[in-house]
């Protein structure tokens, strides 16, 4: 960890363990997150991602050390959570109307209600037309848009999102990711997601969990000033839509039918791309990578 990161440390976890009925869901986990990071928290179901998020939110008791803003999340809940925006995986079945939710959040967090309204409207949810509707009666996408606006409207220092774009339509998803991209660089963002292709361009760090342990922790930041490039030529055994979309996102072009793809990737993005493509190793037949250094 660099000196700068240590100074900006927002979440510090040391030897964290959490068990449910003697089953270890988080196993001696040590990791820290700083204010300038955008983290993709990935892993299979049951890897411990949600449990880790809940520990950070002070919802579980645990063994080990966990501090958020240097404070214990169990004993300093209010102080910590006023600076944390959270979007859950499943929208809660709140019986409140949209108006009541906005009033409740504004009152509780001291945020101007219009901040929530603006983001909701930008995401395509008309607050005016839905003010008197119970949250429970909104569609899945509408609920998610409101939850996202409630999390982002508070301008938190930490954003925790558990599969945040799952219920969003493609247009709202695009706007949503633009919003995340525009979030202050000082904000720590932890996104738990299965859709690596969606968040790949957003994150600066990938943390992969399996059976309660961290199996991969990769910082993807290379100085933006680097002009070096990596020339890729990848031959696939087969290709599906997900993979094709990722390749297109990374400006790959298909040659020799649809199974061979080529592109040049900036050095600053290379580690990020390697992480993403490693998830498709089973369908890669051959891969050639050549570093092309820029002239001084």
């Amino acid at each position, binding site marked *: 960890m660099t000196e700068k990161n240590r100074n900006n440390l927002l979440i510090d976890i040391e030897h964290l363990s959490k068990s449910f009925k003697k089953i270890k869901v988080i196993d001696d986990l040590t990791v820290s997150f700083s204010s300038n990071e955008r983290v993709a928290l990935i892993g299979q179901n049951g890897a411990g991602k949600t449990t880790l998020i809940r520990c950070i939110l002070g919802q579980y008791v645990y063994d080990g050390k966990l501090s958020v803003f240097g404070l214990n999340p169990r004993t300093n809940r*209010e102080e910590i959570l006023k600076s944390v925006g959270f979007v859950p995986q499943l929208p809660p079945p709140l*019986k409140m109307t949209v108006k009541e939710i906005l009033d409740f959040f504004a009152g509780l967090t001291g945020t101007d209600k219009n901040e929530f309204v603006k983001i909701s409207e930008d995401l395509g949810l008309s607050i005016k037309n839905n003010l008197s509707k119970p949250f429970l009666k909104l569609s899945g996408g509408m609920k998610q848009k409101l939850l996202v606006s409630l999390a982002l409207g508070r301008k938190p220092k930490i954003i925790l999102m558990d599969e945040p774009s799952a219920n969003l339509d493609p247009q709202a998803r695009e706007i949503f990711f633009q919003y995340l991209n525009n979030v202050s660089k000082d904000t720590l963002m932890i996104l738990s997601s299965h859709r690596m292709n969606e968040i790949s361009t957003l994150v600066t760090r990938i943390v992969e969990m399996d059976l309660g342990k961290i199996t991969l922790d990769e910082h993807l930041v290379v100085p933006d000033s680097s002009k070096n490039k990596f020339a890729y030529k990848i031959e696939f055994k087969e290709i599906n839509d997900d993979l094709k979309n990722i390749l297109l996102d990374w400006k790959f072009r298909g040659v020799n039918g649809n199974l061979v793809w080529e592109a040049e990737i900036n050095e600053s993005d290379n580690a990020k791309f390697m992480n993403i493509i490693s998830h498709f190793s089973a369908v890669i037949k051959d891969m050639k990578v050549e570093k092309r250094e820029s002239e001084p």
Partner: protein
Amino acid sequence: MKNGLTQIAILDIKQNLRSKWFWSYSILFGGFVAVMFALGITESQIIGFVGLSRLMVTFMQVSMAILPIFVLISTVRSVVGDRESNVMEYMLSLPISLSGYFWGKLLGRFIIIFVPVFLALFGATIWATITKIDVPWDMFAVYSFQLAAMVICFLGMSMFISTVSRSQEIAISVAFIIWLLSVAFLDLILMGIMLKSRMNPDLIIGVGMINPLQVFRTGALALFDPELTVMGPASYYILDTVSRPVFIIFSVAYPVLLGGLLAFWGNKYFNNNDIL
């Protein structure tokens, strides 16, 4: 910024105002008073008390039968229900203290349960004043306190059960068992059997006095029947052990203390264990 107690209480009240159970419950109590007036229950004279006092005593007996089960069933699902439906995961990601959430829920429930009962009783006094029936204000005051005490008692119990239970089914089952035990250990049923089988009177009275429902019943009876004649021999023992005023104070203090202690333990458990 507050710790969320007030906001959670207001939220709980608003949510319950939308629920069918609340309106059924309010109509039941309000309707009961209206029916008693309509049936002329204030006009006859029974064991020395007339007018509104008769209505009030009948109201208290009905409250004893209905209120605890209403409180238990409507409240035991609150914490465990929020936990099961993921509402709690979301709500407690907000800057709300765990105690603020717990006591806010309890406060909201207290208001939503006590206010309709109180208003029904208070409405009766207003109607009596309009129709020129004597209103026993001292009785009204004590009954109001006793009703509040019983609500606090069963609310504290319900919140404790709701907090420590891992599923709504368990919480409701435990609530039913507690209610059945409370009813079974009333002087009317099991206490009568125990007395008949000549069990130790200390044990019988002891069992009665730890049963908040029995304490409430005896306290309410003591107000209009100073000798507690309807309770039979147990009345001598009670009145010999403590005086009538002391027992009336006990009938308010004990349920409040019991409910308060259970709520305190429930809050402690909530603060020291996994929320979800």
